[in-house]
């Protein structure tokens, strides 16, 4: 219990209150993130209902295998993150670092695949803007679809990069032996953040990659 008391901020009465408040704070923050991404999901929904064929068409421009692999990669990174939190709760320093680094490797693989996909789109002139050329039907609505693709996956990737930075911080702190069974709040909070980023992708994948695949 002593490590927890050392980390006790002065506005709190005891470590339980601090952990409780911190975790609640992270959940409140995640609620704001739901609304933040939610705005883009609203836009996506409105246009998909308005232009179903164009969206189905444009969705087929994305590589479903890369998308599926990325989904699996992110799910695995969520698993390793959960194991990192679990190790922190057990006070096992080596395992915290191991699972955090695994999480970061998986995250890096995800981002690597993502940027490869982006580069491909760039080569095919499918980035919305002046150079956008699409030979299929409804090119303009296809451009809207791709605008959402880049905006939503781009914002998601940005959140992953932030997560990467946070995990780096955790690795450093774990290396310095700052965590124990009594005090590992930052690991838990950043774990919550990472799982949320995973959930966003869980919805992005089918909505962006799996429209009209049967056609």
């Amino acid at each position, binding site marked *: 219990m002593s490590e927890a008391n050392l980390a006790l901020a002065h506005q709190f009465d005891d470590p*339980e209150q601090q*952990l*409780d408040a911190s*975790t*609640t704070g992270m*959940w*409140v923050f*995640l*609620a*704001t*993130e*739901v*609304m933040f991404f*939610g*705005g883009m*999901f*609203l836009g996506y*929904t*409105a246009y*998909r*209902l*308005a232009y179903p064929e164009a969206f189905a068409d444009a969705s087929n421009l994305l590589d*479903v295998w890369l998308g*599926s692999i990325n*989904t*699996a990669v992110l*799910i*695995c990174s*969520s*698993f390793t*993150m*959960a*194991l990192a*939190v*679990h190790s922190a*709760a*057990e006070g096992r320093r080596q395992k915290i670092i191991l699972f955090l680094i695994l999480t970061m490797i998986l995250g890096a693989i995800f981002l690597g695949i993502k940027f490869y996909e982006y580069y491909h789109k760039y080569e095919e002139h499918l980035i919305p803007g002046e150079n956008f050329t699409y030979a299929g039907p409804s090119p303009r609505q296809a451009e809207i679809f791709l605008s959402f693709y880049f905006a939503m996956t781009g914002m998601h990737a940005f959140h992953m990069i932030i997560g990467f930075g946070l995990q780096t911080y955790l690795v450093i702190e774990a290396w310095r032996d700052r965590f124990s069974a009594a005090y590992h709040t930052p690991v*838990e909070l950043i*774990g*919550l953040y990472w*799982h*949320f980023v*995973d*959930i966003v992708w*869980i*919805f992005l*994948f*089918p*909505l962006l990659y*799996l*429209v*009209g*695949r*049967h*056609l």
Partner: protein
Amino acid sequence: MNSERIVSVRTYAVVWVSLLILTVTTTGIAFIDLGGWNGFVAVTIGIVKALLVILYFMHIRFSQRLTWVFAGAGFFWLAILLGLTMSDTLTRAPVPPPTVATQVGVQPR
């Protein structure tokens, strides 16, 4: 209090495998024509996956009720945003194409 109960590695592993299976499922079903229901099925599977992550990876299953409220509030408010906006976009009367009579400067026959 949160996470006083440590979730077992086995539980995490079961959730992990379930998520991977569901991913394969949703990708596979996408290639089958469900006659307009593809979108609904995809989102439903997504919801199941999200729930698995929230309940187990994020420990909601073992958290206090207040945390459930905060976790749910975001999604509930998102439903308001989507629902009420759709009440407009789905009920707009289609704008009729311009006829001769509505073009400026043209005499109707």
